[in-house]
């Protein structure tokens, strides 16, 4: 491996491959820290509380949400788009950056991929529970049936969603799992008893031979190539839920790129939030270094600026269209009764990330942490603004309405976060958070000690 003399090493702390294995496996082998317990309990309580709200809603009806005849979607689809968006950074980091041979991705790709999968899980929940009759959700799948057969509507963007999300989840899961196999084998080798049996099963009989490694790397690159278009396609399809409808504020051709870049933006913000906490709690400062943080900050500034451009383009198009309905929607967003949500969105997504140009802020972990959360708040509001402010005042003034979410709806919002963090904390506890095998390939060159470690063969 070529080593730059000017660039800082990717991994600090003078780690040996053995150190890597020990460091990464430590949280899996010892007892969890008190902090983990606190976090897990918090996440689980949130999940339980949110779960109760969702269960109540399914039992009682969609009416337990604040929706009405005019605003048919609110928190539900906002949460859905938000979580799908969160997932995007994971795929971008693991697949696109792999193809572009961005070595710095190795420290964060595993967690980012895990984040993708959990985010897609969360995202998948909302279209399900937002149905009036969720027990019939399987009707959205095109399968041979005894009802005619009654087929699904291939013209519906909602159906495309089903395919996009389904594909995305499958590919991401496979990619994540295949990438994890060498690490699972490492854990297997270190474990005893039942744990060994379980990891033995999941490591697919990994032996670490040269041929295995070769096949493994080919598979990874192939999967990366498969996953790469998904980065663009999934959120493009999601954006078509809106773009293909006639509602002003939805019916916009800029939506696919706008949504994709927003997704990458929010996804990176979420990775930052998680990594800043994880490196501290898991003591991974040497693996997830300030260099990684800075790289992600740069992505944030970049994507944030494109998001700003998208907002401007959207507004310009509305003005240029000459359509009074389009123009009204934007004026109404900015100065109407729900203008607060629009300005939250602009402050969080356009103004806040620009602060990262300032070196001092870029070097302050607390500041970055806060900004990453601010960006995600902003991105949640972006979807809220698109959905609610377009719907609540559309064509006929007689049907204009407001939208006030209910407590149950807030319950459904926190349900997603509860589920996400519960899964993520379980992941931290039971699976290697950092791709050991990949990290070992980017360790700074050094006098090699005799090593018995597995992954070193690569």
């Amino acid at each position, binding site marked *: 491996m070529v080593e730059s003399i000017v660039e800082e090493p990717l991994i600090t702390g003078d780690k040996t491959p053995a150190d890597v294995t020990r460091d990464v496996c430590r949280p899996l082998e010892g007892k969890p820290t008190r902090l983990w317990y606190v976090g897990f309990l918090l996440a689980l309580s949130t999940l339980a509380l949110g779960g109760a709200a969702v269960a109540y809603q399914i039992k009682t009806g969609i009416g*337990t949400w604040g929706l009405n005849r005019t605003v048919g979607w609110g928190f539900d689809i906002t949460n859905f788009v938000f979580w799908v968006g969160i997932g995007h950074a994971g795929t971008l980091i693991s697949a696109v950056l792999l193809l572009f041979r961005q070595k710095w991705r190795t420290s964060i790709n595993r967690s980012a991929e895990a984040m993708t999968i959990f985010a897609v899980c969360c995202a998948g929940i909302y279209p399900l529970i*937002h149905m009036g009759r969720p027990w019939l959700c399987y009707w959205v799948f095109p399968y041979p049936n005894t009802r005619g057969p*009654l087929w699904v509507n291939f013209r519906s963007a*909602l159906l495309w969603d089903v395919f996009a999300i389904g594909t995305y989840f499958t590919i991401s899961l496979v990619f994540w799992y295949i990438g994890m196999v060498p690490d699972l084998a490492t854990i297997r080798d270190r474990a005893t008893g039942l744990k060994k049996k379980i990891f033995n099963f999941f490591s697919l009989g990994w032996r670490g031979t040269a041929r295995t490694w070769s096949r493994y790397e080919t598979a990874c690159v192939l999967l990366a190539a498969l996953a790469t278009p998904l980065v663009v396609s999934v959120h493009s399809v999601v954006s078509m839920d809106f773009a293909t409808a006639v509602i002003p504020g939805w019916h916009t051709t800029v939506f696919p790129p706008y949504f994709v870049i927003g997704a990458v933006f929010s996804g990176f913000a979420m990775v930052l939030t998680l990594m800043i906490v994880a490196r501290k709690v898991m003591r991974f400062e040497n693996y997830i270094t300030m260099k990684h943080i800075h790289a992600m900050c740069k992505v944030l500034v970049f994507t944030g600026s494109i998001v700003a451009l998208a907002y401007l383009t959207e507004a310009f198009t509305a003005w240029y269209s000459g359509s009074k309905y389009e*123009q009204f929607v934007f004026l109404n967003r900015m100065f109407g009764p729900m203008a607060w949500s629009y300005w939250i969105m602009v402050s969080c997504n356009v103004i806040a990330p620009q602060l990262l140009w300032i070196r001092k802020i870029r070097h302050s972990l607390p500041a970055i942490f806060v900004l990453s959360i601010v960006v995600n708040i902003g991105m949640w509001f972006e979807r809220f603004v698109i959905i609610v402010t377009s719907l609540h005042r559309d*064509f006929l*003034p*007689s049907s204009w309405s*407001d939208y006030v979410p209910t407590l*149950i709806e807030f319950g459904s919002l926190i349900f997603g976060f509860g589920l996400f963090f519960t899964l993520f904390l379980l992941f931290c506890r039971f699976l290697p958070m950092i791709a050991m095998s990949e990290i070992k390939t980017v360790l700074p060159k050094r006098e090699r000690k005799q090593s018995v470690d597995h992954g070193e063969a690569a």
Partner: protein
Amino acid sequence: MPSTDALLLPGEGADVSRRAFLQYAGFGLATAALTGCSRGPVQSVLTHTVAPVGVVPGRAYWIATTCHGCPAACGVLAKCRDGRPVKLEGNELHTLSRGGLCATGQAEILSLYDSKRLGSPQVEGASVKWTESDSKLRATLDKARAAGNVRLLTGTIHSPSTRAWIAKFGAQFGDFKHVEYDALSVSAIQDAHAATHGSRALPAYRFSEAKCIASFDADFLGTWISPVSFAADWAAGRRPDEQNPHMSRHLHFEARMSVTGSAADERTRLAPWELAGALSGLCEALEHHASGPERVSGSLAQHRLQHQLEVLALELWNSRGHSLVVSGSNDVAVQVLVNYANELLGNYGTTLSIARPSLQRRGSDAELEALGRELASGAVDVLIISGANPAYDLPTEVASVVTSAKTIVVHSDGLDETAALAQYRLPTAHALESWNDGEPEVGRFSLTQPTVPSLHNGRTLREILARLAGDERSEHALLEDHWRENVHGQFPGGDDFDAFFKRALHDGYVELEGAATEPVFNADAVGAASSDTPTSGLGLVLYPKVGMLAGEHAHNPWLQELPDPVTKVTWDNYACLSEARASELGVKLGDVIRITVEGGQESLELPVVVQRGQHDDVVAVALGYGRLGTDRFAGVGPDWLEGEPTIRTGETIGVNVAQLQRFINGQVRGDVGSLSIEHVGRNVTLAATQDHHTLEVPAHLAPKGGEVRDALMTTSLATYAHDPEHAIHRPHVPDADLWPDDHGKTHHHWGMAVDLSACIGCSACTVGCQAENNVPVVGRDEVSRHREMHWMRIDRYLSGTGDKVTAAYQPMFCQQCDNAPCEAVCPVLATVHSSEGLNQQVYNRCVGTRYCANTCPYKARRFNWFDYPREDRLQNQQLNPDVTVRTRGVMEKCTFCAQRIQEAKSEAARLGVPMADGDIKVACQQSCPTQAIVFGDMNDPESAVSKLSAKQRAYGVLTELNVQPSVSYLARVRNVEELEHSDSEEDHG
């Protein structure tokens, strides 16, 4: 098959084969299943060994009868299925209502199935059998006959047979009086005619004959006397088209904003106390034109509306003989002036007639006041009250003294305010379960037939009186005998009685032909009138709400949830204030104010509705609310964590304001008294279905050129006559499609045309649709969350400011788009296009994503947020068996009454004839009193809908989206001189 013996008696040694065993088992299972499924017989159950002639299970049959929702007596046909009525429709043969039926009439079907109606007579609170109540009442009456008096207090009764029985009943007492009153009194009109024409009569109005109509606070299209027939008449003169760009002119003076006022060409705000002055001024101006003797003089010159009144007089004079002046005032002096104006204009005999007067209101407030005095003095022994609720709907002078009668007998539907005070409570038979007749106009007779056996053991007044007299003839016989003896004779030279009566039953009505002569006008009765301005500068206007009327229908959930046409508020009454008055007081929608009438002890607290177009100096409050027992609706609407009950137990829906009425000069007046109002500081949520009231978008959000939405187009008659093609602004509609038309509508293409000039916003269609399509009632909380379920809504848009405020109405429902946005987005194909242009909703396929509702540009789709079962299970009997009842989680919407289309197609196929235009009448169209809605096949160039859609004032709403709606709206034309500027620039969507 084993022998019968073996089958029935598998005795010892009998060889029960496997097959026989299965037969036994099958029989046993089926029997068990059948007994399990059916309700157990309560009493003896008789099957139709011989089925009733003509009744086929599952097939509708129609019974001609008469609506008893109010005394207007519109003709209706009751649609019955399997022995029970499920829907009322206007009888098109009926010469008064001509097929229309108002919201109240449509809702009557639900009242029939009201489980809270009295089930049996009650004496001193204990339920008894009719025989027992009859004998006890007979004993009471015997005592009164010997020494004492009997008073009968009723609403208007125009049933000739009932009146005959009342006369017979009264004749047995030494001291008997029958007093009639109307909760919505027009007593002054009759008293004024007594003065000017020597006969106390209510004229029969013929708005169709009037080329110029001046209405002084008469809401004749909404609630006044006989709105259905008046609206039909009125609309007949208001359908201009390219070939004949003429229409009647309608000028309206009123204090509050009414449906009639908003339908008028010119509307002027006039406080009730200004009516006398304005009419004096009008008469004075008319006298100038007539150049006859001056009986009214001196008031016009300094009147604030001098110019307008002079112009009005000129317009009326130019149409003399074909003009009409009406007033809703209950002041005899005002009504005398109205008569004088009509006399000066020569309208008697053409646009109004008292030769054959109307009997739709017969109440006399003077007699009522006299009865009140008599009651107060404690001189009444037996007070029988039938079809009236004086303890609720009358001024305190009478309402509070009802209990002074020694014995009170109340004949009523349910346990109302008056029945609660009574010793004898006798249940009324609903009009749909009884025989009856009526004479809404002298010489016009209508008949009422039962459509279902009595559900609640009620009796008509006629039957009660007959039984008390020991007459045990059946109701039918009582009626038929009366007609044989009294009515048939008025139709000389016709059929024999049996044929005559049969024809009357079939048609629902008979009428005398030939003209009668108008009585002579007595000009000596005329004098100038005036009234006092309230000392506080603020006066009261009490008005009936469309549908709810005086409160007799307060127990009907459809009418409670029917949005007021003007304010769009449901489930409540409220104090309407003008914008200026509200801002002066610093109150907004829902703020509670306290209203105190000067000199009165009581004060009322009511939430505010700020109503544009209302007179600044009046507070307008709807009558008919605050009814006892309306807390029955506590169970209406879903019960969930954040859900508010529609009403709390022990409270009432709205507040009763009837006690604020006063007797002035012998008339009950709701427009008197000087008020003071104050802000209480509380705010309540009013459940309104519309929040934004204009077509203009808020000024600070208006893009240039997009300040006004053009969903509802209006033009002036002058513009339309000048250039019909460009009278309305048409958006650019894309003329090329990217996709081929994959919906070839080769056979039929159903469409609709709605004439906005004829639509008066009366909301009859809304309730008609609700009845036809099993649309649920969702309750106050759900409506306030904007989750009303009405498939057919009336969008109301206000326009203008100050004195020029007017409202226009637009029925809005699924537009059955040919390029329907909803169809493309449903993931499970639950909404699909039919080969006949219908946008079909497949309820059992719907998973409830609500994507279709979001993307509907008309917001015509309705979602079942919860299960909305009927709170009164008995009312499930009304459900239309042809229409699916939707469960929660399912989207629904207008289907153009797909079930009616299907029925008509099946019928045509059965008869082997092609379908003709007009074979299908959808529910809203059927109910519309003004025939503003026309449905038909757009593939047939000769159909009414095709012809209307081709008119130059026809347009589609939001056609610039290229959704291709199947509904054409005909722009509203106001008969005004101004040319309205039409923007010729095309708007690209």
